[in-house]
């Protein structure tokens, strides 16, 4: 089935190959999962200095207002339970597309770029998200997929020092700021954000100039290439959800512990409370507490508990691991999963079934490591 669909190559494919990348199919693209250094070193380098990730597979969508930014913001609020109308120009916010049952269709970043909104969505959900936005926003927006721009993420504590050599103004940005910078006559859309738990930037730039720009960054001593493998272990240590694994159409934002992405103005008693798909369930769960919650998990042995690992308490099946592996910076296996609210307190001891054996695993606070955002 899927093997009949040709994989799309990234604009930076030649650079990845020159860097010794191992390419794997992911969401319809040939993606670098790791380079010569390997997942562990790429992860640790990103935590210590700066890692450069090619995330061009993600969907970049521009919403051009047809009847003003205010009306567009309100229309977007009918799809996303976040405070979009209150998002100031030059700022970005994390959000979710919810469905009528209160499940999650995708997670996203939305940026107010003054003249338009820029929405960045997951690669695997791109087509569905575009259809969803076109179906609901067309009266107030022209929904345009950006198809000629690469998307790079520079992550890690030395990201600012490295990037500022090319784009000096980024040093003035703080977490979740967005700006447009110019490099060699080309517009680069910069946000100070990422998916690693570290300070860092995400950079949308013309594919025609992506190789030169990435090359300039990689020539700096702080910067090393990092692949999807390190991206996954970094986000897991940071307690960040991966769509299709930790969140999906079954899980509500409240269950996922993403209530922080639903600002008070959209909650019961707020000026624009509700009005998004699944608001009944989601607002009720936010007020009363959902029956189950996403938690961090620390296996007590050395064996990782991967996605799908069954969780037990007192001999009864109580939940499932949704993401799990080894945390290179934690130096031990880590995981996330869903358990009943009564068992969600940090320190609660559960068992995870690994190769038919029940192994102890403790509920842990998230994130597993403190984050390094420059607020």
């Amino acid at each position, binding site marked *: 089935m899927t093997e009949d669909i040709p994989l799309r190559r990234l604009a930076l494919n030649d650079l990845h190959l020159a860097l010794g990348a191992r390419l794997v199919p992911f969401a319809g693209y040939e993606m670098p*999962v*790791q380079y010569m250094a*390997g*997942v*562990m*070193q790429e*992860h640790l380098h990103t935590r210590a200095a700066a890692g450069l990730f090619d995330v061009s597979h993600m969907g970049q969508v521009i919403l051009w207002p047809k009847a003003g930014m205010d009306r567009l913001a309100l229309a977007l609020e009918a799809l996303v339970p976040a405070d979009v109308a209150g998002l100031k120009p030059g700022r970005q916010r994390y959000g979710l597309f919810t469905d009528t049952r209160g499940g999650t269709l995708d997670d996203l970043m939305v940026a107010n770029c003054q003249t338009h909104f820029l929405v960045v969505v997951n690669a695997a959900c791109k087509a569905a998200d575009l259809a969803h936005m076109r179906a609901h926003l067309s009266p107030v927006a022209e929904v345009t997929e950006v198809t000629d721009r690469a998307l790079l993420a520079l992550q890690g504590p030395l990201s600012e020092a490295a990037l500022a050599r090319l784009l000096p103004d980024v040093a003035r940005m703080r977490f979740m700021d967005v700006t447009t910078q110019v490099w060699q006559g080309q517009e680069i859309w910069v946000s100070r954000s990422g998916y690693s738990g570290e300070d860092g930037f995400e950079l949308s730039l013309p594919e025609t100039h992506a190789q030169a720009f990435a090359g300039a960054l990689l020539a700096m001593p702080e910067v090393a290439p990092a692949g999807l*493998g390190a991206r996954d*272990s970094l986000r897991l240590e940071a307690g960040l959800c991966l769509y299709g694994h930790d969140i999906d159409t079954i899980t509500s934002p409240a269950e996922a512990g993403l209530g922080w992405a639903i600002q008070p103005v959209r909650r019961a008693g707020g000026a624009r409370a509700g009005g998004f798909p699944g608001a009944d369930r989601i607002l009720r769960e936010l007020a009363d507490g959902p029956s189950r919650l996403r938690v961090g998990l620390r296996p007590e042995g*050395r*064996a*990782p508990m*991967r996605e799908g690992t069954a969780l037990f308490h007192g001999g009864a099946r109580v939940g499932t691991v949704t993401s799990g*592996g*080894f945390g*290179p910076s934690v130096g031990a*296996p880590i995981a996330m999963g869903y358990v009943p609210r009564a068992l969600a307190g940090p320190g609660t001891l559960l068992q995870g079934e690994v*190769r038919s054996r029940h192994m102890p695993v403790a509920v842990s606070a998230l994130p597993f490591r403190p984050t390094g955002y420059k607020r």
Partner: protein
Amino acid sequence: MKYTEDHEWLRVEGDLVVVGITEHAATQLGDVVFVELPEVEAMVARGDEVVVIESVKAASDILAPVDGEIIEVNDALADNPRLVNDDPLGAAWFFKIRVDDLSVLDDFMDEDEYEEMIA
């Protein structure tokens, strides 16, 4: 040294066969973070899953290349799974197995044949 299609190496040591994985396999696996070894004295059959190796990315099984009894396992791997990446052909052997007849090794590839397979 003999090699299997599953990227194991087999080395005869007295009447035992020492089993590990090749450098090629270790590189493919990536950073190894956990190794689970079989029980000593376990009787295993060719094709049984006897070792679990977990890398940062995923879990892989190592299959018993021959029928026999597990005589010794390399406990150093439990504390230092990284050995599989650092010294796959030496310090990171997995187990020693006693076979009835060492001639079963004749069926496996020699180094040239293995190098050709992975080329």
